């Protein structure tokens, strides 16, 4: 929930184990302790969706967590993440958006051996949309007081064997029945691709067909719908930019249309009556479902520049439960 910096500092000083999201200036005023954090000033709260630069969103780890470790992981150390995971527990990570760590995690996580054996949940830190291009997303190691823009911060939480940490994902989208897209290279931007098997310009396709950019590209990974959201159409480079990498060799289709974005999100959340120990929601859901001031969502958390459920996801709500 949202707290003033003073309130958050009281929780830290009391020894609570915390995840904290907020604007950079607010996070920088937090005292040292058992917490990690990342920058974002958008939140889904019990009082409604809101942008708040002064308060911070605090998620306290449950008492069942027996032990935590916090450290930074550099882009060159990403392959160490599975090996460093707790035997019984989960990893909570925050990645600075637009950083080398963001790119390398997004591109490489799919192929990390052992990654899927222990839950990894987290999000991509961002900035206020008014500050895009001016401010830099940051992550914080509360134990050391260090701030990073080039590394991800990881909190590894140990839980008793009787509990099973389980990641849940709320995704509004299914593959549509339209054209098939295959990309020749993995990356956050593309100029060309194969459309229905023929070489084509994705830029021309999007421009000439007036594609609804609120609907992501979706690939089917053994039954899981994995979204890649459109970020922008770049006339200068005649390319299309995405919020997550399109993967070479994967087959994408644009998501089927939603009649009612907000209604669909509310229905999906209502169908998942969960009590998460951590959750976050995509800022695109916040924007496209017009959640500012909206009190209807029961699952709260920061509205992020990308969600991590083992791998980088877009336009999803992700959460972690401790199941018995």
């Amino acid at each position, binding site marked *: 929930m949202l707290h003033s910096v003073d309130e958050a500092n009281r929780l830290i000083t009391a020894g609570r184990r915390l995840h904290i999201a907020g604007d950079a200036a607010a996070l920088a005023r937090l005292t040292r302790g058992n917490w990690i954090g990342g920058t974002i000033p958008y939140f889904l709260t019990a009082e409604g969706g809101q942008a708040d630069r002064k308060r911070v969103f605090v998620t306290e780890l449950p008492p069942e967590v027996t032990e935590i470790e916090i450290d930074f992981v550099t882009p060159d150390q990403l392959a160490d993440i599975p090996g460093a995971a707790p035997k019984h527990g989960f990893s909570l990570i925050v990645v600075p958006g637009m950083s080398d760590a963001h790119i390398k995690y997004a591109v490489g996580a799919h192929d990390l051996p052992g990654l899927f054996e222990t839950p990894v949940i987290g999000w991509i830190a961002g900035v206020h949309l008014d500050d895009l291009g001016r401010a830099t997303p940051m992550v914080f190691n509360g134990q050391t007081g260090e701030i990073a823009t080039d590394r991800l911060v990881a909190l590894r939480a140990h839980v008793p064997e009787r509990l099973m940490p389980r990641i849940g994902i709320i995704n509004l989208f299914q593959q549509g029945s339209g054209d098939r897209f295959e990309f020749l290279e993995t990356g956050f931007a593309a100029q060309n691709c194969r459309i229905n098997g023929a070489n084509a310009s994705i830029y021309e396709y999007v421009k000439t067909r007036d594609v609804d950019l609120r609907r992501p590209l979706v690939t089917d990974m*053994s*039954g899981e719908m994995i979204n890649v959201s459109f970020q922008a159409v770049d006339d200068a480079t005649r390319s299309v930019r995405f919020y997550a990498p399109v993967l070479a060799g994967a087959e994408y289709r644009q998501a089927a249309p939603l009649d009612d974005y907000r209604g669909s999100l509310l229905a999906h959340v209502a169908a998942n009556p969960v009590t998460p120990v951590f959750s976050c929601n995509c800022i695109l859901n916040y924007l496209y479902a017009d959640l500012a001031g909206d009190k209807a969502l029961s699952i709260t958390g920061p509205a992020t520049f990308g969600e991590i459920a083992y791998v980088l996801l877009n336009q999803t709500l992700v959460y972690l439960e401790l199941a018995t």
Partner: protein
Amino acid sequence: MASQIPPPTDALWDRLVSGAVAHRFSLFAANMALARAIRIASSEPARKPTMIAELHQFFSKFAGQLAPELQGLR
């Protein structure tokens, strides 16, 4: 429960890693691990045995949830 997971030599693993079995497991991580194995085995067939071994290890770890689903696919 791990004993209820078919051994790596069982033909089911080859069918899974070849993408010949259409099934969505109840565990998100299982589907992602399978998608990874299929992708790597498809592009580098020599790594198929390694992918089967890794997948077997994964399913053994989550046997309590996944063994009944695997049995249904045999």
